[in-house]
């Protein structure tokens, strides 16, 4: 390949040495490459146009147009026939055995001895007392799962507490009502009540049952005096004769 005058002139200005060099290329091309290349390209285009296949699938032309796809590797006989089953078996074996699993993931780690590099203070576990160390307050409360009988026991205790509270409240309420009533009714009021005119209604049956009760026998002098006035002398004499030990003179005065 000879250089044109223009290129040589330019090169002489930049580098006279380069202008003197032969510009022939030392590369070689397979024989017949350029002669068959247009036909090869047309075949590729037609192949792509009609079948949509890629350039690598064109089965034509000398080998220098094609990428060499023959691999120098070999595969054991029936390798692909049993591959799926072999893999499944291996996966199961690995899943069931942690050592095998680690061996598969990292043979280096699997080969290492399991030595704990951490140290503890002397007699740490011997002197360790549970409950000595307080838990930090911020730690959330633990939730325990209860067994069936524990649940019933807890429910019974809870019901007992509720019942006791109700009973205690009711008792307190009743006693407080009684005392408030006692506080509210004075002795004077009671006396007035007993001296009321209506008392006759109440006292009459009470007198009839005088032998059975001592509740209302504390009757004042005026009442007795009035009651005696209603009794005639003859009846009084008969009573005195029948009960000589009775002395009602004081009461009569």
């Amino acid at each position, binding site marked *: *390949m000879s*250089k*044109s005058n*223009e*290129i040589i002139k330019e*090169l002489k200005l*930049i*580098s006279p*040495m*380069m202008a003197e*060099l*032969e*510009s*022939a*290329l*030392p*590369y*070689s*091309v*397979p024989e017949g*490459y*350029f002669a068959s*290349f*247009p*036909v090869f*390209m*047309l075949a*590729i*285009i*037609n192949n*792509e146009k009609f079948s949509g296949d890629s*350039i690598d699938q064109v089965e034509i032309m000398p080998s*220098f*147009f094609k*990428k060499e796809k023959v691999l120098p590797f070999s595969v054991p006989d029936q390798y692909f026939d049993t591959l799926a089953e072999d893999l499944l078996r291996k996966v199961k074996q690995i899943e069931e055995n942690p050592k095998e699993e680690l061996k598969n993931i990292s043979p280096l780690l699997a080969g290492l001895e399991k030595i704990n590099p951490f140290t503890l203070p002397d007699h740490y576990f011997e002197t360790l007392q549970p409950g000595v160390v307080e838990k930090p307050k911020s730690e959330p409360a633990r939730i325990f799962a209860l067994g069936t009988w524990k649940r019933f026991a807890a429910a019974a205790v809870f019901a007992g507490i509720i019942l006791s509270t109700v009973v205690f409240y009711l008792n307190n309420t009743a006693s407080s009502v009684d005392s408030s009533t006692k506080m509210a009714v004075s002795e004077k009021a009671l006396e007035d009540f007993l001296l009321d005119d209506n008392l006759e209604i109440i006292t009459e049956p009470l007198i009839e049952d005088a032998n059975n009760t001592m509740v209302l026998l504390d009757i004042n002098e005026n009442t007795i005096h009035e009651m005696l006035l209603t009794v005639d002398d003859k009846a009084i004499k008969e009573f005195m004769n029948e009960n000589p030990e009775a002395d009602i003179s004081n009461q009569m005065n």
Partner: protein
Amino acid sequence: MADFEDDRELLRLFHVEETKEKAYTSIVKKYQEKLYWHIRRMVVNHEDANDVLQNLFIKVWRGLENFREDAQLYTWLYRIATNESLTYIEQQKKRTSVSFDDVSSGLENKLVAEKGFDANKLEWKLQAAIQTLPEKQRVVFNLRYYDEMPYEEMSQVLETSVGALKASYHHAVKKIEEYLINR
């Protein structure tokens, strides 16, 4: 550089269904070698160049339908070839986890693996020197030194000003000269 009248006629034939394939084949025939060597100088080995060239012409087939005839087919093809080559190098870099600084050393290694490589021969030394250039300077040097592309056309291919391209070419030549003298 290119026969524009001829290109225009090829494009016209491409847009007619009956002559579409014939026009396409003619375009491939006309530009395949130029584009191949442009790509080959970028990616170094034949297999990679072949991959890029095939992808390029597939894109040409798809893109020619919408190609604007006011643009030059020739510069359009070089632009695709350049972009495809740089993308290919970028993909290879990602696949092999090579850092940006190691791209040129990766290309140099490819060069060493080429059939007939001889580090003492000047033509191989020149190729080794080109692979040490930054990406943009490498493209500019190849287009100017080997393809003898006018700066105006190169400006359309690389969408860079003529002044910037001249400066890039100047720097590239100086670096290559320095490489050849010192090694």
